[in-house]
């Protein structure tokens, strides 16, 4: 008798897909992060009162903002890369370059935002 299908989330994550697979994983994390943000936002407005304020305090915290901003920005820029490549398949030969370009756009934009969030939060 053969084994069950040889796969699990952990074994999949251990696959060495390198840069492109990393963007795939971050895209999923980004999507989940956005859903989490929207959910707590709706929940906070729905509950109101003390409970609402407590949830507000969590997602308005600078740590959460840094996380959510990462999710939204990465999801957007990576989504744009995939859309462009899907519309012009000939460009898929330059997939590696496209990923470098994506990071080159993402890192400075994200870096500036993190800087501003931190300055506002910690610098007073």
């Amino acid at each position, binding site marked *: 008798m*053969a084994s069950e299908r040889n*796969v699990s989330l952990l074994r999949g994550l251990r696959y060495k*897909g390198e840069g492109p697979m990393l963007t*795939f994983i971050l895209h999923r994390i980004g999507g989940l992060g956005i859903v989490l943000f929207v959910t707590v936002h709706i929940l906070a407005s729905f509950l109101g009162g003390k409970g609402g304020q407590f949830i507000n305090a969590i997602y308005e915290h600078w740590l959460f903002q840094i996380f959510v901003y990462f999710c939204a920005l990465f999801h957007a820029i990576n989504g744009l890369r995939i859309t462009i490549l899907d519309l012009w398949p000939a460009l898929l030969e330059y997939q590696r370059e496209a990923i470098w370009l994506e990071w080159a756009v993402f890192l400075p934009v994200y870096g500036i935002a993190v800087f501003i969030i931190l300055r506002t939060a910690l610098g007073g």
Partner: protein
Amino acid sequence: MQVTLKIFRFNPEKDRKFHYETYTLEAEPTERVLDLLERVKGYHDGTFTFRRSCAHGVCGSDAMRINGRNRLACKTLVQDVGERITIEPLLGLRVIKDLVVDMEPFFENYRKVLPYFINESPLPEDGRERLQSPEERARFDDTTKCILCAACTTSCPSFWASDDYLGPAALVAAHRFIFDSRDEAAAQRLQIVAETSGLARCHTVFNCTMACPREIQITKAIGELKMATITGKLD
């Protein structure tokens, strides 16, 4: 140099779970990983089981995970992967024994795309071959190179999630015939690949292209199929 091989082992007659075994061998940097596997089987443990045939990257039978990434053991040199080498079977398929996996779900998907030449029209007047220009031939040249090793399909997260997904190899085969000017079943195949278990499950992860030992631009071929299903055009 001394090489340490950590090999996935599973004997369905004895084991309930897989385990790893470690072997230390002397090897030349220019030897292939397949040579080391042969040595383990020949000198260390005759029960060790894996597939191989041509040993020259042509038959596609020895695709496996080498240091966490799908490769052909016969095309991977020791110097390319270092002195600590982990060998595991392809992901997403059932393990029959050690590195031998059940390839049936892979071939089942392959058969779905009608991977053979279809042309019911009468032969040309001279009764000989159906001609095509060098440009027409070049259109699908890349996807003719597939050796059905399954390295691509079993590196794909969508296939790991569900083996209903046709997978990159079947889509490569579909591309090979859909873009062949002599073939007449492109429309039928486009319908098959456009189903929910087909193109829509490709999330442009790119693992397949990186894993392909034939260096086929798989994601590009899939992208061209996506466009063809949207526009209905084959240019």
